[in-house]
């Protein structure tokens, strides 16, 4: 967009939302290095609709944005004409503690909603990273999840209603405010994980849960991946019903700490030279219940447990797990992070694939994730030796994907933007791609929303 066009678009945006809500930090915001021509913060779904109508009629590319915690996921955008920030739509629409339901507008940082719920001993069981910044809309768009996914599933399993504006400016909704509801198509499922490519999410309703009164975390240590996974199998066959069940690789342990400034942002540079890297694999289980129930967990887990966490140390531990990815990326800006979606049995082979692909392409592997849902966070950390070439990332990723068992998918969540041109961020998926594209075409025919960034 030329400067003159940009200025005229800004004027039109200002007539929708008011001058004070156009521009702002436009100079600083970048998505994979691309800065938006205009930034606008609508205050209501109707304003979002007016903005999208304008964009749609002019063929302007729009990127919806929340807390800017995961904007770098996906392919490099060709251009962004309008960055649509949900920051002003940041209120709780309705909260009925007695009904255990809450409606939250898209721009509210998730941690604020959790605070409100905590007043009533309730919560939304989502422990993704950076919840003080990440917004409800952004978390929905990226289908974000954390270790609690093991027991509670993802947002798709507790989002009961969704409000959105389609690319051509229709204010629409799916679902409702009650916990059980089959009226109409399940538009929640469609919007969750659509990475802002179908519509701009303006709010959502959730069923909330009673917050567990007491939890405890049991850490078990093993000498090898095989032993760790064998223990996982034992737990899955037992009557235990953990809240979280994580596997942590030896390489990941180093990043379970408070954020550390990079020593050498381009390379692997541990604070102390690591003479003999840890070989310790961990299976970490978090359980909720009374003393009596927790004692049962202790009995069932037996001698394998070497450490227990509760209270503050437990909170800190799980915060570290959730922030593994951002910790890796803070320390190594050239690291590549991938997310896997695997069948249960394929967790072992996928970790093996990581180790092999990383070793062959000069990366240090580190992995942690949900041992029983197959959602792993894989880090490929560049070595101190040669600076990684752009193709090193794509070669490694290709090798890794080729080693994955069939039916798995693995997307690149983060890697240097320079390398993105050489790789397929999203990769193969078992779900029919042509139909996904038809769905996108149905509600964003001019492809104005997040053009070229998502799989569709």
């Amino acid at each position, binding site marked *: 967009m030329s400067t003159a066009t940009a200025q005229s678009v800004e004027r039109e945006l200002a007539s929708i939302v008011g001058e004070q809500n156009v521009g702002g930090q436009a100079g600083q915001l970048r998505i994979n290095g691309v800065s938006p021509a205009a930034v606008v913060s609508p205050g209501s779904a109707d304003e979002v609709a007016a903005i999208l109508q304008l964009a749609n009629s002019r063929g302007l590319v729009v990127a919806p944005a929340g807390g800017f915690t995961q904007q770098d996921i996906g392919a490099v955008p060709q251009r962004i004409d309008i960055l649509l920030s949900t920051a002003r739509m940041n209120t709780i629409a309705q909260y009925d503690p007695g*009904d255990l339901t809450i409606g939250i507008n898209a721009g509210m940082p998730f941690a604020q909603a959790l605070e409100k719920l905590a007043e009533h001993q309730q919560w939304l069981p989502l422990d993704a990273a950076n919840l003080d910044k990440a917004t409800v809309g952004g978390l929905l768009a990226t289908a974000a999840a954390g270790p609690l996914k093991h027991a509670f599933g993802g947002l798709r399993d507790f989002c009961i209603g969704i409000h959105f504006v389609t690319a051509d400016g229709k204010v629409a909704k799916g679902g409702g405010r009650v916990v059980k509801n089959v009226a109409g198509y399940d538009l929640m*499922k469609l919007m969750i994980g659509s990475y802002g490519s179908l519509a701009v999410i303006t709010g959502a309703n959730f069923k909330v849960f009673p917050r567990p009164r007491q939890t405890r975390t049991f850490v078990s240590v093993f000498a090898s991946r095989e032993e760790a996974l064998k223990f996982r199998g034992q737990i899955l066959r037992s*009557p235990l019903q953990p809240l979280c069940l994580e596997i942590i690789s030896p390489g990941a342990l180093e990043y379970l700490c408070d954020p550390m400034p990079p020593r050498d942002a381009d390379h692997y540079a541990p604070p102390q030279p690591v003479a003999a890297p840890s070989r310790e694999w961990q299976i970490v289980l978090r359980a909720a219940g009374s003393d009596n*129930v927790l004692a049962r967990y202790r009995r069932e887990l037996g001698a394998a447990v070497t450490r227990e966490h509760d209270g503050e140390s437990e909170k800190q531990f799980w915060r570290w797990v959730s922030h593994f990815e951002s910790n890796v990326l803070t320390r190594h800006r050239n690291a590549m992070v991938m997310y896997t979606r695997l069948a249960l049995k394929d967790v072992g082979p996928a970790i093996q694939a990581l180790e092999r692909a990383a070793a062959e392409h000069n990366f240090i592997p580190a992995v942690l994730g949900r041992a029983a849902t197959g959602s792993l966070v894989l880090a490929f950390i560049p070595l101190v030796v040669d600076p990684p070439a752009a193709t090193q990332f794509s070669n490694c990723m290709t090798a890794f994907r080729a080693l994955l068992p069939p039916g798995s998918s693995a997307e690149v969540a983060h890697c240097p933007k320079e390398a993105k041109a050489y790789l397929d961020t999203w990769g193969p998926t078992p779900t029919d791609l042509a139909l996904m594209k038809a769905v996108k075409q149905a509600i964003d025919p001019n492809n104005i929303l997040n053009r070229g960034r998502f799989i569709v």
Partner: protein
Amino acid sequence: MDSAIIRELRKIVGKDAALDRPEELMLYEYDGGQDKSRPGAVVFPETTEHVSSIMRLAQSTKTPVVPRGAGTGLSGGAIASKQAIMLAMARMNKILEIDVENQRAVVQPGVVNLEVSNATAKYGYYYAPDPSSQKACTIGGNVAENSGGPHTLAMGVTVNHITGIEAVLPDGRIVQFGGKAQDSCGLDLTGFFVGSEGTMGIATAITVKLTRLPESVATLLAIYNSIEDAANTVVAITQSGVTPAALEMLDGWMVRCVEENVHAGYPMDAAAVLLIELEGLKESVEEQAEAVSRVCTEQKAREVRRARDEQQRQLLWLGRKTAFGAVGRVAPAYYTQDGVIPRTKVPATLQEIERISKKYGLVIANVFHAGDGNLHPLILFDSRNPKEIEDSHKAGNEIMACCLRFGGSITGEHGVGSEKRQFMTAMFTEDDLEVMVRLRNAFNPESILNPQKMIPDLRYCREITGPLPKPKVEPVSGVPV
């Protein structure tokens, strides 16, 4: 139906697998709901390829196709017009794979819900969603309707237990959504497909999650002298921090009806009972059972009983799950609603239902998933009395309007189908519905698949002035529509 189409159908599936004689078709003119209509032909595919060939034939001849599982649906989802081919999935009834290690089973759509649990019990697993019709209803039908059941309170509904679907689109293309992994990269078309009531495609293979059988189960029966106390208990349990596996309510009329049918030990003089189930680790079930009993007593339960053994537990559940059948024994006809309300509104809604019952002089029996706020008021009427037929629908509409006033939904688990199609405009705006239509068209552009279901006729929508239009189809009169 055009005899050339029948001939083509027989070429695809074999002579004995396509029906077109009126006496054969009669069996397929109804489902568990109120509407009736005789299809033009019924065809029984055995493989995905059969389904694909049938869809290609239908596409080229512009013949509507209506899929059907066991025909237990309560919203007319499996009702086909005389121009339509009914695709009956009864012969696609094989469990294709039980993958214990991945906690998944892959089944054909015609597999009966309970059979999945029966086949996996020996490994210590079961399939969690348990519609009351689970002895008959099929997984394919469950996927279409996103079926619920008593135990969905803690376990979630069908969509929370499906990870992969192979489907045939209206043009005959065979597509895959998801697989054995809990989710996959890209749009969640698996989740979107579930609950689409056969309007997007025909599921031909379904990957379901298997759930570990709980170590311990406690089933409580809380007995009340007043229905209000029972309703208040539901609110109190919801707020207590305990999530029961199931929390069901039966009112006094229903209790007596059920007891006469199954002799499960339900008290004949109760005004209402709650059937509450807790599942999980032994230790936690004991604690929760104690906590729930305490809440019930605080809310003036006359007595809280606990099932002594599995047999007694099964008997209590038999009473609950055969409740609709039990009503059939004593009442000539009934009309079931499936409205949902926020759980704190259970007491107020029951009062409203009582008022409506008195207003029309019709018995309305209540048996419902109280923990979810999912009501099933059964409005009893005499189908020989035209005024009662009309009143039963007026009463039903008033109950539905009440659910919506309280911020609820017109259907919690039975689906929209043809029965509640007209009521969609009371929940959704024209723009909402247009988005749904555009999305359906991405799968089913000419609406050949299950036409006239779920989505109301949009031109008709615009003519609506009141919040609750009268249904176009008059149910239960016995006249084919």
